[in-house]
């Protein structure tokens, strides 16, 4: 945390500023655009439900296309939130404190978007209960517990509900902060939402225990979710899908795309809501480093896949990969390669890592690249199967495009509503940083002479990268 004269009251005031005041113009513009996107989603999904999956561009050969691509893309994006809130908590990385709230919110909204794709893909969503092991009129013919799709039902529903629980429990103290500052109806609403939180000694003690255990169990949960998503493909006999590298490769890709989406959202949120002192250059750079690392893992996975296709000697597998890179969908493959493997390598340069407009642009590039990755895996593997006579191309209809663009609209609508009604930064957790990991506390230590001159020098040098720090304050220190 950076900034001079930071107090507990100032933290509350600054973070609650967007919640307690009328939205500004930037928010309204963003909200209207997102809401229009969400409307497009409503129209597209309604047409899908009314007329059935014939509204999509699917054909006999390519039976899975944009819908599953969108599903995997959103689930992957969701992963970063849990990763930031859970894994970094387990490893006591307290820099997570200022970004975990919005990242978790992003997880929830991304998983909601992902879930809509599954429901839509069912064709007859009113029969969604068929996925549950309920006694029925067929005998009882139960669900097939051997199916990876069944595992997906359990993984995604558990992931969504546990993430929601984790997020909401963490919100309770902050909702109480809003409640105690509000008047009238607002107070009443936030009072109900706060569950009667008081912040007493025992409450906090239990709260911390609960947070730590939830983080501990969410960590393997988040890894299991994308592993199981990859099972949907890996357990099939389709060349290009049937590979054992899929689980770790999907998880790395999920973290990669998730951090890119966090970056896309937070760089804008930080600027618009004036959160420069909480979401600092340290956060931006750390996230960029994670993008670089996971992007490289994904790159290694792509190359390994290609190598193994050749090394296995299986001609179908070999053809699937040659077809990806040089077939009719070569443009998708090379978009994926350049967006996901080549572009993140630019982050080896510390100058680019700390350049905010560049980081933002690159996060968009990564998001596009990760969408292409799923498209390549799904459509190019399917479109040329074992029988050349059934080879086909996939052409999306406008409903396909509408569902996808629309889901982005739904996501941003939810996110924009979230930053208006709930604190986008975990207030209580950021307050913990005030006397430990803040610029102000460090400054006090320096002034009181607790640090070695060499340490001070190093600290000053590392501060130059922060856009929210005025170096003039350090001239005489």
């Amino acid at each position, binding site marked *: 945390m950076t900034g001079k004269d930071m*107090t*507990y*009251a100032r933290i*509350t005031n600054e973070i609650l500023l967007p919640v307690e005041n009328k939205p500004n113009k930037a928010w309204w513009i963003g909200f209207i655009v997102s809401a229009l996107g969400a409307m497009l989603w409503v129209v597209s999904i309604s047409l899908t439900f009314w007329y059935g999956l014939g509204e999509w561009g699917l054909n006999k050969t390519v039976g899975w296309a944009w819908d599953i691509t969108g599903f995997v893309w959103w689930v992957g994006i969701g992963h970063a939130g849990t990763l930031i809130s859970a894994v970094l908590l387990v490893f006591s990385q307290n820099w997570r404190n200022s970004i975990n709230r919005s990242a978790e919110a992003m997880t929830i909204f991304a998983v909601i978007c992902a879930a809509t794709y599954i429901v839509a893909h069912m064709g007859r969503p009113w029969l969604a209960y068929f996925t549950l*092991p309920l006694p029925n009129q067929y005998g*009882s*013919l*139960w*669900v*097939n*517990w*051997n199916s990876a799709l069944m*595992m997906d039902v*359990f*993984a995604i529903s*558990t992931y969504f*509900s*546990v993430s929601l*629980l*984790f997020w909401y*429990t963490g919100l*309770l*103290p902050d909702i*109480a*902060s809003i*409640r*105690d*500052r509000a008047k009238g109806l607002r*107070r009443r609403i936030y*009072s*109900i*939402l*706060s*569950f*009667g*939180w*008081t*912040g*007493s*000694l*025992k*409450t*906090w*003690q*239990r*709260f*911390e*225990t*609960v947070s730590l*255990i*939830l983080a501990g*169990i*969410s960590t*393997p*949960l988040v890894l*299991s979710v994308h592993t199981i998503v990859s099972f949907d493909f890996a357990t099939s006999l389709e060349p290009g899908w049937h590979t054992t590298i899929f689980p770790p490769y999907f998880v790395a890709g999920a973290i990669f795309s998730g951090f890119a989406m966090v970056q896309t959202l937070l760089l804008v949120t930080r600027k618009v809501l004036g959160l420069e002192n909480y979401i600092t250059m340290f956060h931006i750079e750390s996230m960029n480093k994670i993008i670089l690392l996971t992007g490289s893992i994904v790159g290694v996975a792509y190359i390994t896949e290609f190598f193994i296709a050749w090394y296995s000697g299986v001609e179908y597998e070999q053809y699937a990969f040659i077809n990806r890179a040089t077939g009719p969908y070569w443009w998708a493959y090379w978009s994926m390669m350049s967006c996901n493997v080549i572009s993140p390598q630019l982050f080896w340069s510390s100058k680019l890592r700390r350049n905010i407009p560049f980081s933002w642009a690159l996060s968009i590039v990564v998001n596009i690249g990760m969408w292409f990755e799923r498209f390549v895996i799904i459509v190019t593997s399917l479109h040329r199967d074992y029988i050349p006579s059934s080879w086909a191309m996939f052409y999306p209809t406008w409903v396909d495009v509408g569902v996808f663009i629309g889901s982005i609209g739904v996501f941003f609508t939810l996110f924009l509503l979230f930053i208006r009604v709930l604190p986008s930064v975990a*207030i*209580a*957790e950021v*307050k913990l940083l005030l006397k430990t990991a803040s610029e102000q506390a460090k400054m006090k230590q320096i002034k009181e002479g607790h640090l070695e001159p060499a340490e001070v020098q190093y600290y000053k040098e590392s501060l130059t990268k922060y856009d929210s720090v005025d170096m003039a304050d350090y001239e005489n220190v």
Partner: protein
Amino acid sequence: MSKTKIILGCFDDPDDMMQGITNLQKNSVPIYDIYTPMPIHGIEAKMGVKDSRLGYAAFCFGCLGLTVITSIVYYTLVGDWPQNIGGKPSFAMPDFIPFMFEWTILFTAFGMTLTFFAATHLFPGRAPRVMDLRATDDRFIIAVDAKGNIPHDDITNLLKDAGAVEVKHNERKYVSYE
């Protein structure tokens, strides 16, 4: 007899509040409760609060979830309606592990958190029992029951000595939301 029900020592710094606790404890003044806007590390040991047992609850709920899902899967696919899939055994243990894992997590998370809510009396619609509105903002509050702890001025002085910015003698225990 004064009408004071509760004495609140309001601090603007957690370290001063800890000093306040020390002062009260040295003089054997029992503390009713402490309200803070953030968790204070090390306060449990000082106040003699035992470790939370929610971890045990979490473990039990995890075991319950594992048992429930294992029973469901076993009953449906092995007991009630075994399916012949390529002549393989219907008790396909590796296939069941993801379900067992997911529901262990699901039950642990919900069981533990709901236990936390129940033990702490947190539920939607509960009237917040707030003693000071700034306890969720920037004040660290030590609450002392006024009854039996006299003279009140001594307590006030103990809190002031520790650096309390304000000491309140409230006639009502909770700030009421009208």
